């Protein structure tokens, strides 16, 4: 299981990445992230919504109420152009970090 500090750092990337596939509401977003990371990243309600609101204030995502097929009102989030722009350097940063850690741990184990 990945520690909470790393989880916090990767949360933005995880949210932006799943939203790149299409608009989602909070519950579905959490479910997809858990499913796609095979349970390594798990968003509870308490972790998810403050993060979503913060990202919305930064202008990376935009939430709007929609009525689902079952007639329920749900707030769906979409990536904004600013969010799309943010995703690519964020991916690069994390790839570099994981690459560096991988190299470092290999050296440490040698």
């Amino acid at each position, binding site marked *: 299981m990945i520690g909470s500090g790393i989880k916090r750092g990767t949360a933005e990337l995880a949210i932006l990445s799943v939203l790149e596939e299409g608009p989602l509401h909070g519950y579905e977003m959490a479910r997809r992230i858990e499913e796609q990371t095979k349970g390594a990243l798990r968003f509870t309600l*308490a972790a998810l919504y403050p993060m979503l609101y913060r990202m919305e*204030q930064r202008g990376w995502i935009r939430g709007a109420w929609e009525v689902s097929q079952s007639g329920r009102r749900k707030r769906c989030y979409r990536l904004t152009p600013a969010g799309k722009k943010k995703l690519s350097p964020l991916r690069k940063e994390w790839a570099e970090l994981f690459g560096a850690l991988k190299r470092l741990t290999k050296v440490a184990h040698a």
Partner: protein
Amino acid sequence: MPDWQELVRQSLFGLALDAEEKDEVHAELAAHLEESYESLRTKGLPERAAMQQTLAQVADWQDLRQRIQVARTRKENIMNDRVRQLWLPGLLTFALSMGLLAVVEKFGPRPIVLDLDKGTPILLFYTSWLLTLPLAGAMGALLSKRAGGSSRMSAISSVFPVLPFGVVFLIATPAGLLMGHNLAHHVVGAAFFTMMFGWVLVPGVALLAGGLLVQAFSRQSASRRIAGS
């Protein structure tokens, strides 16, 4: 099944947002809890266990309330950041450079006058003012940097004094052409370029030079700090 909306409302009691925003937050979190609960029930969990597992998503409602409040009101913080990192340093730089110009006009040497064309636009170069501008630009950049501004913010704060001139000239030139039918186009055009050169471009370069110098120094001292730590 509980009334999720009421449960969220009671648990987040004291959330300091306006009524409409608060209702939205309550409705959104309630919908999430309801969906979690129903999903667990569909998986076969008994009512009580599903309820417990659903509510376990929030260990501390007061902590959640605080974090939602901070996240939802961050717009205000961004505004404050912009004021501290751009508007305040920019306006102070503007005030300083205009103050210096007034002093130079009153007590300084006469400006260099360039007569570009007989009876048409004249360019005044207050050399001593231009020499003091890097100082004003450096102050703008320094204030912006100290408030946590990015390199871009810092550079804009440095050149802030020339931005209003640039905007005025950009508006005044087409307006002059439209309104003053008796003005020759080449005169307005020449005036535009000389004004832009004398009041925007040259002072802008002087201001930016000071700003870039501060940025270079702050980068150097940051790398020294990292190396020393």
